[in-house]
């Protein structure tokens, strides 16, 4: 009887059923799309973050600069300084060719004691941890006018004074030089399951081996190798030492670059940069996702001066239109979903309760012929539940179509995650000779990419949609049922007599 009655009611009251189902469908579809976009944005953020922090990293430990000054742990590094002696360089035809490179932890970045890694590894619920040292290599190369000797014997470098027709390399008595900067990351060659190299794959050559721990070997990002015309077997000067290129890597994500231009063994990086026992980041993987908060707290307790961040915290470091999309989804999308959902629920509740009011005589009659309160409430709630379910099914279909449309359109979002690397090139000219310009040498993005938004269709999203539809039906049914239950048969029959 329940099923027959329910079917007859819904099929004969099509208008009400259609309105409730349509409202619910709209809300469900919107919730699905907003949730889907949020998941897509999260995936995109994860891709960007993975390219910087590696796959599987739950927590990173860094140290914020504490105050200007060099040498002290945690103190930010100053820019590289190049000093040339009077005898340095090769002088020919009135110009002196100079070249020097410096490996530092980069302007504004800081390092800390490698014992932090030991501390992290000693904690319960830490599955793996590794440390890296993010560095910046700045190379100065160029030609300057040969110094002239004054009467007092003092040398005035770079004054660009011309004598006897001598000129500088620009033909006008000035100087020209290049400043080339690339990022260097020192990593543990043991190949931990976390860290920046977990999100890259080998393109050419080989990966690090244990025997490379203190060797002058380097692996290049393919993009950097291409732009620098370097291949496996070539050599590259880092921090004034020659390194052999043993491999090239690319990001496992088709959209992203890797976190660094070059990778060298951690011990080598510490030695060449004169940062013995110093690291810049510890990458930590918790034993399970439920342990992340506890591990974060424990790390913060053990390393009070450190900055301990989870992936969730790190997501805020992603900028660009992806970040804008994330904000949009997080704020406008969520509120829009809530408002539409609330409106759909309200419409459903109002139509159900008004339906009960309209059917007062019907329910009064049913009670008069022996239907219990429970049976009447079940009938009303059942009708609402089915109306919600119809809306849910339609909503899921619309939502899936919407997601499909977005995935086909694949809107491109630009994203970047900041890291410690710097890049830049400068050139100076003129008689002053001191025009050393580091215009781009401030901290910039290590992984900048355009990502086509793809919304994942998961059982979770569909499950949420179905659950909301059922919830809407239950809420409307509860209100309608409550009203029907309150009807006393005599009053119900009298009210329509």
């Amino acid at each position, binding site marked *: *009887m*329940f099923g*027959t*009655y329910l079917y*007859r*009611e819904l*099929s*004969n*009251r099509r208008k009400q059923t259609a309105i409730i189902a349509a409202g619910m469908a709209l809300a469900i579809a919107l919730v699905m799309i907003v949730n889907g976009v949020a998941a897509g944005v999260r995936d995109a953020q994860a891709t960007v973050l993975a390219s910087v922090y590696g796959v599987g990293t739950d927590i990173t430990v860094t140290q914020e600069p504490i105050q200007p000054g060099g040498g002290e742990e945690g103190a930010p590094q100053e820019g590289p300084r190049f000093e040339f002696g009077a005898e340095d360089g090769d002088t020919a035809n009135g110009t002196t060719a100079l070249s020097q490179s410096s490996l530092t932890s980069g302007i504004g970045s800081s390092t800390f004691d490698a014992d932090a890694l030991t501390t992290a590894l000693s904690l319960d619920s830490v599955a793996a941890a590794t440390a890296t040292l993010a560095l910046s290599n700045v190379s100065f190369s160029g030609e300057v006018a040969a110094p002239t000797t004054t009467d007092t014997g003092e040398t005035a470098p770079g004054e660009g004074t011309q004598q006897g027709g001598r000129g500088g390399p620009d033909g006008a008595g000035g100087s020209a030089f290049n400043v080339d900067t690339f990022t260097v990351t020192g990593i543990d060659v043991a190949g931990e399951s976390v860290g920046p190299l977990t999100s890259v794959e080998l393109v050419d050559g080989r990966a690090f081996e244990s025997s490379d721990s203190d060797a002058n070997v380097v692996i290049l990002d393919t993009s950097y190798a291409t732009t620098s015309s370097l291949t496996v077997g070539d050599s590259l000067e880092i921090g004034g030492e020659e390194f052999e290129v043993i491999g090239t890597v690319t990001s496992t994500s088709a959209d992203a670059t890797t976190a660094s231009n070059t990778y060298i063994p951690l011990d080598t990086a510490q030695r060449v940069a004169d940062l013995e026992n110093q690291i810049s980041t510890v990458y930590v993987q918790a034993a399970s996702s439920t342990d992340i908060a506890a591990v974060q707290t424990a790390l913060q307790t053990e390393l009070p001066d450190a900055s301990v961040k989870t992936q969730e915290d790190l997501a805020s470091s992603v900028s660009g239109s992806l970040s804008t999309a994330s904000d949009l989804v997080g704020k406008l999308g969520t509120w829009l979903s809530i408002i539409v959902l609330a409106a759909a629920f309200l419409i459903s509740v109002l139509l159900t309760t008004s339906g009960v009011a309209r059917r007062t*005589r*019907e329910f*009064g*009659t*049913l*009670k*008069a*012929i*022996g*239907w*219990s*309160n429970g*049976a009447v409430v079940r009938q009303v709630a059942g009708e609402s539940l089915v109306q919600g379910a119809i809306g849910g099914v339609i909503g899921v279909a619309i939502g899936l179509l919407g997601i499909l449309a977005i995935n086909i359109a694949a809107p491109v979002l630009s994203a970047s995650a900041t890291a410690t690397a710097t890049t830049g090139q400068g050139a100076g000219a003129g008689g002053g000779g001191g025009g050393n310009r580091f215009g781009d040498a401030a901290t910039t993005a290590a992984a900048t990419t355009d990502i086509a938004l793809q919304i994942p269709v998961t059982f979770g999203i569909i499950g949420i949609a179905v659950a909301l539809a059922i919830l809407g039906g239950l809420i409307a049914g509860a209100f309608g049922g409550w009203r029907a239950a309150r009807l*006393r*048969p*005599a009053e119900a*029959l*009298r009210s*329509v*007599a």
Partner: protein
Amino acid sequence: MYELSELTKKYETKRGPISALNKVTLSIPTGQMVAIQGPTGGGKSTLLQMLGALERPTSGTVTLGGEELSAMPDSRLAEIRARTIGFVFQGFNLIPTLTAQENVETALAPLGLSNSDRRLRARAALEKVGLGERLTHHPAELSGGQQQRVAIARALVKEPKVLLADEPTGNLDEQTRDEIMELLEGLWRDEGLTLIIVTHDSAVAKRAERRLYLKHGSVTEKK
């Protein structure tokens, strides 16, 4: 069958309490056909609701088959209505979205019968009231008399001991009224029912074995 003792029912209104029944004491034996007459507002429908376990008295008692209705919880009253009492209303009170057969089946739903039993009994009840050819018709597709026949089938399909009819012919023409009354009388005789009819129509009341007159909440026997 029914024993009413000092039965009083008052309704609270904005203008103060209104006494619909005033210390009514009455006995209705099993199998009797009783007509209740009286002016509008005299308390006829209220008395019928008391007899039908739809309303609780303000004071006094209503006993049906030895069980005091006024002391029972709602769930037990619903059970008594489902098994013992049949209702026929002036406005038929059929569910418009259900067919004639499905309307009759609604009276069997609380009894927990199987689907097939329910259908068989509903068909048999409709055939008994002369609507065997109208099983799948909706109320809107039936005349007033046919709708009342469906309502009577719904009331009788559960084989109640009591049939309470509130102005059962009030919305019908004279010819249909007579047909319905003949049907009710026939069922009363054949089924051994206690039939209590509230009516304004003297022609209907004259068919009853016993006539009661209800005015200002008080009952008098009418010869």
